């Protein structure tokens, strides 16, 4: 099942064959103040709501998804933990990097069709990092690797937009100012429930900029597996239903984002998430991936 939020009121919907079927009837049974709370509670009690959602989806007509404004399916996850350097980089690493992560601010999250705003600074470059997002389904506190999948509710596309290098205040690069600027977390268009993803460790991840395929890698290249990632993060900090873990990216296909760019990401058949880029300073960089840059320079 594919769960979405849509419209100005962040209505609950089910995505079916390119149409959004309204599921407000289910949302009405879930007391909430914010769309994030609605989704977190729906996820925590999904067994209770699944059949009702399936019935609505089977009987509803739906509106074409291009006529509904899809929102991020988790607009403000209380915890958004991103893995750092977690791929084998197509054989260019001989062994995995030591396992590492950072907390990305939930204020970064935007949805399908929203705009990535590049802030005023003289960062060296702004990169896209296409990633598999894991949606946590139940309280995960010191989970074992063998039980890790029990804690996964579903998956989504996420782009960990990142800036590199020095900023105008002389700050050294770090994960806070490098990763947490507002709009740097495109997520969506839907949450794909785990039952639809047979082998999460074998999913193609693709990202295009201006129609050019930039990133094209598979989750089988991950340095620390999903099981290990969930066990390690939950060893350190407790995750709750509706929290998100981003699995990290393969850096070979990273490249610059600049004013006017259209960026699209799709993991497997999750549906495309499309975002545009605005930069008031209209900076430009060579349109090439890291791999292309290396080939050119050598």
């Amino acid at each position, binding site marked *: 099942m594919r769960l979405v939020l849509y419209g100005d009121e962040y209505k609950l919907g089910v995505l079916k064959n390119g149409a959004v079927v309204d599921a407000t009837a289910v949302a009405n049974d879930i007391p909430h103040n914010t769309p994030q709370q609605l989704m977190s509670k729906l996820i925590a009690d999904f067994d209770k709501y699944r059949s009702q959602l399936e019935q609505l989806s089977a009987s509803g007509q739906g509106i074409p998804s291009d006529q509904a404004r899809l929102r991020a399916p988790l607009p403000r996850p209380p915890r958004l933990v991103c893995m750092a350097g977690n791929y084998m980089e197509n054989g260019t690493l001989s062994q995995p990097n030591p396992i590492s992560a950072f907390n990305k601010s939930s*204020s970064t999250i935007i949805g399908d069709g929203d705009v990535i705003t590049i802030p005023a600074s003289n960062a060296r470059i702004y990169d896209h990092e296409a990633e598999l997002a894991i949606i946590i389904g139940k309280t995960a506190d010191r989970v074992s690797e063998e039980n890790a999948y029990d804690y996964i509710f579903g998956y989504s596309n996420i782009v960990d937009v990142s800036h590199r290098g020095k900023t105008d205040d*002389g700050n050294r690069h770090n994960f806070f100012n490098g990763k*947490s600027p507002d709009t740097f977390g495109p997520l969506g268009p839907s949450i794909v429930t785990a039952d639809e993803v047979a082998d999460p460790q074998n999913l193609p991840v693709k990202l295009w900029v201006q129609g050019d395929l930039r990133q094209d890698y598979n989750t089988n290249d991950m340095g620390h597996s999903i099981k290990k990632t969930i066990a390690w993060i939950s060893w*350190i*900090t407790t995750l709750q239903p509706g929290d998100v873990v981003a699995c990290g990216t393969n850096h070979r296909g990273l490249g610059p984002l600049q004013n006017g760019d259209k960026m699209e990401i799709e993991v497997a058949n999750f549906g495309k998430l499309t975002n545009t880029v605005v930069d008031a300073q209209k900076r430009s960089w060579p349109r090439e991936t890291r791999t292309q840059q290396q080939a050119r320079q050598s």
Partner: protein
Amino acid sequence: MKLVLFGDDYKLGVLQGENVIDVSQITQDIRYFSPQEMMNIIIGNFDKYRSLIEAITSNGGGTPRSQLRLRAPLPEPPRLVCMAGNYMESGTRTEAGAISAFNKSSSSVIGDGDTVILPDAPATVFEHEAELGIVIGKKATQVKAADAFSHIFGYLNFVDVSCRGIGRPGADNFFIGKSWHTFGPMGPALVTSDEVAEPQNLPIRLWVQGELRQDYNTSDMAHKIPAMIEWVTSITTLEPGDVIACGTNHRGLGPLQDGDVMEIEIADFGKMTNSVTDSQKRVWVRETHAQKEEREAKEAAGR
């Protein structure tokens, strides 16, 4: 006003001296789904709630604090941004370091009387970092330094418990260094900003086993509160109930170990006390960074 949460159901109270006055009746009309959300709503609409609270507290009374379990006044702030290396270190630095921060997991927050649990991680040491916590009062995005204080709702004691020597060499290791369960003691109270005349001139003290370890003043801050709020909100939007921890003066940092009792107090915010457990019962030399430097210098001179 010193706002607290207390008891199993995180009731709203006001700390007056050593007594807690139950003001939870003002929360009955608020629709909320967590104590944090209740606090966010009260903070975001404090103009409305202040007089309702004062109408109750003006009669005094209350229950001795020692008879209640105080909770963290913000049990799960949606954003908990901690400044890194943000002090002049009592004159041992000639210029401020580059402004820097990290996000600490909201799952780390614990309250007065709760236990800091040292994990079974191969860290070289676990340390206390006593810090001034700033509580955001209204939506803060792209705030200018001149407007910074108008976005502050109040202040609190915060300890950024930290572990060292772990993670990926040469990388930003703030996640594994800072976000552990129980590594964010906060409280006992949220002190409203009207009670803090000079936030840039507050003594901060932290004791371990009764010995004063950290004893510094927020006047030593490298990037002052207005610059800090401008910088953080130039990056990420903050909301009512979010927290910025201002960083620490590292001179007085020292190890935490099994059985320790740690206390922190900023100005007259009220003391927060936490104990420490470590199932591995690791032991470190009980000294601060400054004491260690002095000892090592003496040892070098005597050689």
